[in-house]
Each structure stands twice: as C-alpha cells, then as structure tokens.
C-alpha cells in the first residue's frame, strides 16, 4: 500500500548538536504509528520538522505526503495539507468557549461577522464525533484535561485532518480518559484517518498501535509491526535504550521502623467554591524507611491532599492534625511546614517546580538558601559545592551546574527538583507524579533515588497515576477516590485489578 506520509533521510542540526540524523519514517493510510524513544531522542524535533515549525530548508531530507513532495514553510502550510499536531501542552484559550476555540482563526464568518448559529451546530456535530458530552458554549477552563484533549481533536477534525499527530496525549489523563482517547483514535482509524502517537506509555501503545517506530539518539533504530508478531514491552524498551532492562524497578529491601508522619482527620474545601469538600476526613501515616503510594484516578484529590498538608498551599477551611515523630506540628504556612520537616515535589515541575530562566545551582538551593548563607549573605563556593554534590549523587546530566534549567530534559529537570528538596533536609517527602513525562531510563534512576531516601530513614509518599509504578516501588498503598481513602493495602497483596475494584466499589457506595 502507498504510504500517506514518508519522511526520507531527515537530518536536522542545531549549533553544536545533531538532533536528527537520517531519520526515515512512513505512515500508511488508516494506521496508528507509535513513535517511541527516550526523552531527547529527537521525537519532538522530528514532529516539528513535519509540521513546519522548522521550515523547509532548515533541515535536509524530503517529506512526501499523499504522493507528492511537500516543502512546508510554516505551520499553517502543513495544517492546510491536513497534518495537524496536538502538543503536550494544550493550545486552547481557557476563557473562551469550546466553539470559539474550535473555530479560532477559522471563524464561520462573513465580512468579519461571525455566524454563531453555524458555529454552534457544527461544534455539536464535532463533539458528538469525539464523544464529548458538553455544550459548545462551555468554557475550556471548566473542563478537565481529558475533555480538553478531546476538544483539541475536535478542532483538528474541523480542519479536515488526514494525519493527526499526538505528542504524549495521555500523559496528564487518568485511566478512564486515556482509554476513551485511545478508543477515539481507533474510531478515527476506521474512518481512514492516520495518527502518529508519541508516547512513553508502552501498555497503551501495544493496545492501539499498528506499527512502532523506535528513535534513539536522533536515528530510527527499528520499526516493529504489531500485527506480524506479538511485541513485548521489554522488546520495545530494549530498542529504546539499546540495552536490556532486566527489571524496570530497582530491587530494594525495606527496613521499616516507627511511624514518623501522621495525619489525622484531614479535611479541606475547594479554594473558590467554599461548599465543595475536596478532602474528606483522611487519616494517614508513614513509617521511617517506608515508601507509601497513593493511587487514584485524576481528580481523586491526591494533589489537593498533599498541597493542603504542605503549608495549606491548596484549599480553604482546612482542618485536621499533623504529627511528626509523634508531636503535633504547625503546617499552616509553607515555611512552617518545611521547618517541621516536610517537602513536596510538585507534579508540574515547569509551573510550580523550577525557575526555568535560572540555572541549576540557584534552583537547587532555593528551598534552603539559609543553608548556604551566613548572615543572609550567600557563600558562592559553598553553594557551588552543594550543587555539584547533588549533580553527582543524582546523576543530573548537564554541561555544568550553570546550565539554565529550561534546557534540561524532563528527567534531569525532575532530578533538579528532587535535589532542591533533598537539600532542604526533610524527614517526610511527598513526591507528586515524580516520573511524569520521563523516559524509561530516567524513571529507573528516580526509583533508585526514592529507594535511597527510604533507606536513609525518610518517610516517602509517592503519588502516581501509573499503577504499575506504585506497585513496583511502594511498601504500602492507599487508594483514594473522590477525596477519601477507600482502601489501604500492602503492595505485596495489591494488584491493578484490586486497586481499580476499590475505586469502582467506592463509586457504588455513594449511590447507596
């Protein structure tokens, strides 16, 4: 069959680095091609070449689409041909409605006057196609990430998409939304629309992909046909990292001691809607040397729980008690929570974790500047020594600690965030989605760091949407749903099914 897209011998260099060298990929009509590779392997660069972000002439090689060579000079050129890319960070305007967003830049207008009737009717059709049950006038800001993703796809469909490119589409979605999205991709495939899906989630890929192209160090290393043979995850991982990963989780022997962190009867309300209770009477405890996982779907209230404990950084009307080493502590502000021995590494490192325009050294010491200062005067050499120590211990890959954090890969950014919190010297670490958007190799390193922390006698809480990860690294798992803990189980006895069952059962209880 004639491929709908062929990229031949694509080479793209940036000053000093060869980002892509002789990459070849092709997409057949009505197929889902998964593109996988470690962070920094060149996937995003390749997609930017394809979509015209890097215009023709800034790379070498050829792009053939629907049988003819294309030379896209800008993004709208590729969009006009029917190639539409949906970025990881969604490009919707939050305070505009669904319909306004879908027709943004392509308004159903005559002489500049918008025909709202037509826009709304067409939006309704599009929303039906993507299975989103919302009114076209609903504001984007009131939709969850999963629904926003569907709006993006509806927007693409409106532009007569022939090839849909999704960059990490499910990275911020919960299991249900992810499955809905994957089902939609398969539905589109049956209508003849091809997709390229960039993803780190191998289980999802094996669910929907027809073929898998693996990119490593800017080169295509392998293309696997999922219909010809059964592709195991280990097979993909091996191609990605170029080495066998015998185990996806580092081994660890837990040495669990006395409880050092306890939260009793914790409740909290939504910061804007004072009547909405987000956290409902939660009790939790973590022992020294223990890694406790908090499982749950997106919106279960896990981040809200963590942030409300960490200096009331979220919510209002917060009630409950926190004990560290058996003594009640005041966590009413972030500095007080930190003094008490708490640390919270955010799920959103770019918005809440790092000062991206600043370099690694300054980011590492930010939470404990007094630790490198005397009489409020920063000692540069001490600070540098600290930064280099964490760079070495956590394996932050960078040219020097003076490198700006915006230029680091996701995994290295996460290591900088972790360094910052380690340097603040906490007893209790809450890690919120510590491996989101990070490649397999870096994940393994992060797990290793978590193990070390536990071995050092810290109490570690890990919030994650990847159940396998929680099962792999925790000693004990709390299952959270709708602001409550609905189950607690030792990780040895837990399984994905058990966790899901606990969540589903808790929905049932509500209807009683």
């Amino acid at each position, binding site marked *: 069959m004639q491929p709908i897209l062929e990229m031949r011998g694509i080479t793209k260099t940036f000053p000093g680095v060869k980002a892509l060298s002789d990459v070849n990929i092709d997409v057949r009509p009505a197929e889902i091609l998964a593109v996988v590779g470690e962070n920094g392997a060149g996937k995003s660069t390749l997609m930017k070449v394809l979509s015209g972000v890097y215009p023709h002439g800034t790379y070498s090689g050829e792009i053939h689409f629907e049988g003819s060579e294309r030379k896209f000079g800008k993004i709208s050129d590729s969009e006009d041909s029917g190639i539409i890319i949906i970025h990881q960070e969604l490009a919707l305007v939050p305070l505009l409605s669904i319909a306004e967003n879908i027709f943004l830049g392509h308004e159903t207008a005559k002489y500049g006057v918008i025909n709202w009737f037509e826009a709304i009717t067409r939006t309704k059709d599009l929303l039906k196609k993507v299975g989103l049950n919302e009114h076209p006038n609903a504001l984007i800001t009131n939709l969850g990430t999963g629904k926003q993703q569907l709006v993006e796809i509806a927007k693409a469909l409106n532009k007569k998409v022939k090839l849909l490119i999704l960059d990490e589409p499910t990275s911020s979605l919960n299991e249900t939304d992810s499955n809905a999205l994957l089902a939609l991709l398969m539905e589109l495939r049956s209508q003849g629309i091809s997709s390229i899906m960039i993803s780190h989630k191998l289980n999802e890929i094996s669910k929907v992909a027809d073929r898998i192209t693996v990119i490593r160090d800017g080169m295509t290393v392998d293309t696997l046909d999922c219909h010809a043979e059964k592709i195991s995850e280990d097979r993909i991982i091996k191609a990605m990292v170029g080495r066998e990963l015998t185990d996806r989780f580092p081994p660890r022997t837990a040495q669990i001691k006395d409880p050092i962190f306890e939260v009793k009867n914790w409740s909290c309300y939504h910061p804007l809607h004072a009547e909405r209770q987000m956290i409902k009477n939660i009790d939790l405890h973590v022992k020294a040397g223990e890694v406790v996982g908090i499982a749950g779907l997106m919106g279960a209230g896990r981040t809200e729980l963590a942030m409300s404990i960490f200096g009331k950084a979220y919510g209002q009307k917060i009630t409950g008690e926190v004990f560290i080493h058996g003594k009640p502590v005041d966590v009413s502000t972030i500095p007080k929570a930190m003094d008490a021995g708490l640390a*919270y590494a955010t799920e959103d490192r770019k918005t*809440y974790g790092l*000062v991206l325009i*600043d370099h690694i050294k300054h980011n590492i010491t*930010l939470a404990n500047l007094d630790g490198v200062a005397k009489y409020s005067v920063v000692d540069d050499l001490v600070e540098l020594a600290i930064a280099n120590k964490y760079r070495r211990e956590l394996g932050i890959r960078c040219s020097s600690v003076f490198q700006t954090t915006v230029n680091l890969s996701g995994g290295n950014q996460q290591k900088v965030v972790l360094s910052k919190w380690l340097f603040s010297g906490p007893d209790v670490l809450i890690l919120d989605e510590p491996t989101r958007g990070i490649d397999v190799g870096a994940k393994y390193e992060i797990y290793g760091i978590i193990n070390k922390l536990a071995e050092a006698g810290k109490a570690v809480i890990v919030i994650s949407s990847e159940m396998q990860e929680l099962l792999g690294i925790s000693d004990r798992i709390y299952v959270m749903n709708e602001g409550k803990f609905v189950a607690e189980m030792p990780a040895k006895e837990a399984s994905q099914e058990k966790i899901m069952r606990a969540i589903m059962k808790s929905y049932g209880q509500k209807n009683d």
Partner: protein
Amino acid sequence: MTDTTQVKPDFMRFIKSNIRDYALLLSLLAIMVFFQFNTNGTLFKPVNVTNLLLQNSYIVVMALGMLLVIVAGHIDLSVGSVSGFIGAMAAVLMTGTSPNPDLFTVPKFDFVTASILCLALGAAIGAVQGYFIAYYKIPAFIVTLAGMLIFKGLALSVLGGASVGPLPETFQLLSTGFIPDIFGVQMFGAPFNLLALLIGTVITVVLIFFNFRTRSSQLAHGLAEEPQAIFYGRNVLIAVALVGFSFIMARYKGLPTVLVVMFTLIALFMFITTRTTFGRRIYAMGGNEKAAKLSGVNTERLTFWIFTIMGALAALGGLIFAARLNVATPKAGAGFELEVIAACFIGGAAVTGGVGKIIGAVIGAFIIGVMNNGMSIMGIGIDWQFVIKGTVLMLAVFLDVYYKNKG
C-alpha cells in the same frame, strides 16, 4: 541532544554570552563620545560633568529601587509623585509653612529631623502600596497608578498650590555640597582638589584589589569563566574611568556630597542583589512566583519589603531634588517615574520579571542623563528630546527581545 557537551570557556563564547552588558556599556561610551564632539567638548568639562551627576543623582537613586520592583515582576508608577510629595513635605516641615495658616500652623523642624521624618513617610507610603499589592494581589500597575494620582494631589495640597522655599542651607548641601579640599594644591593656575583625586584613586585600588581576590578564588576552584584578557581589560577600564573621572571632578570643586550617597547606595544594592538571600529570592520570585512560593519563599512579605524600599528611595530622590532646587514646587517629580522605569529597561531588565542588574539600571540612567544633558547643550528643543529618548528606549528593548529570540 539532552546533554550539551562540555564547552571550553573561550573568548568569543564569553563575549557572546555577555553581549548585552558590553552592548550597554559601549552604547553609553558611544553616546558620550558623540556628544563630546557635537557639543565641542563641553560634555566632559569639569563643571558639566559635575552638573550631569547632580542632575541625575535622584534618577539613579530611584532606579535602584525600581530595578528590584521590576525584577520582582512588578512596576511602580507612583515614584515621581511620591518624590514630589516628599519634597513638598520636607519644605513645609523645614520652613514651618502652613498651606492654610488660618486653619492650623506647622511647627518648624530642624533639617535632620525633617529629613528622617520624610524618609520614614516615604517608606510608609511604599509599605501601604506594597501591602495592597502583596497581600490583596491587586496589580502593582493599578495600585501605583492610584498612588501617582493621590500623591500628586497631596503635593499640591501641602504646598497650597505655591512654591515653598528657600530651604535651610545645611540641607541644600545634600545636593550642592562638595567634600572640602584639605591640600589647597594649584594646577593649571586653578585650584585643584587633590583630595577628590586621592579618594578616587583609593576607591579604584580597593575595587581592583577585590576584583583580583575574587578572580584568584575563582581560579582556585576552576570557576573563572571570564578570559584573562577580558579580566585585565575590564580592570584597566575601571581604573581609567574612575581615576579619570575623579581627575575631572578635582579640577572643578571636588566630589559632590550626593555622589557619595549615590555610590554608597549603588554598592549596597549591588551587594543585596548579587550576594544576599533577599536578593536571590527576588530573582526567583520574578522568574517563577509559584515555584518560589512552593519552595518556602514568603513572596508576600518579599513584595511588601520591595515596595517599602522603593518608597524610601523615592523619598530620598525627592529630598535630593528639593535640596538641589532649594525650593519645593508643585511640579516637582512630574515624569520622574518614566525616566526611572526607562533607565531599568534600557539597562536590560525584563518586563516579565526575573532578569535585570543594578549596574544595568545605573548605566541606563546615565544613558538617559547624558542624552538629556548633551541634547540641551546642543540646543535641541524639548519636543525632539522626547522623541529621541522614546526612540532609544524602544530600540534598546527591541534589540533585547530580538537577540533573545534569535539565540
């Protein structure tokens, strides 16, 4: 791709990564040379250099505070009005003039008490504005716009719509005084203030000594990014500029008092921004307020203090200006905020916050100052002066953005 390879520090790379600073300094030099020629050498005449400093001292002083405000991601439009209001208060307190003698009288204060009261009042004004910005999250633009109107009105009110003066002579010395000569040397048949030259030389030696000490400590830890040639060149330039400058000043009346105040403050603020935890937190907050807050930085208190400092500096600027004119007028301070803000942006501060240097703001202030002075000597009308200054501001920020996007 993730890991950029280790690059050896070299000449071109260093120049490239610090291009903004060099461009700024070169622009100032170019502007000075340009006006030196076009004013037939008037610009660098001792009396004019002294004047230039006196004319710009209050802008520089306020620009120091404004840089903190801008790096923190805010703006302060009220500094002009506040400085005018404080100048008016100072005049009223020092002369004991009541705006409405029928209703009440104003006791006469000595100039020291009055000055201290005025500085405290300025800090209090900044604190109130900072309180609304920090704790109620009202945009600084709105709060200080309101402040601009309020204090413009209050200045008019306390002066009763008229000029109040003259001010005590001892107070005037703040702006018109010079460090007196103790040697009484003659040069070129005119009195030569050897003390000024000596002070300038001593400061130069001390500065260069510290530069070399930092350098050797950097070298010892393998941290010296600056190439040897640039380091020496920079120090020679500092020496020539400072000694030459004090030589010029010595040929007139010596070092003005206000210069001492200004240099002390510049040094203090450079120290605060580059070396202290307070300064570091300002940059972090301006770079990413949410991340700074979640890292335990008390962003509200920080913002509050920044505006308090700004208020005190605006007050100091007002005092210097009043002392210079020897009278408080209702129009004093008008438009200062624009020059102060322009100085920071010409000096490389970013509107988005997180970026900016004290030395940049100072150089920016002098670029504007030299242009004001030079254009006035050349006889360019006030109309075109505005046009030219506006163009320079636009060009500076445009080049900033353009080169940032390019690389």
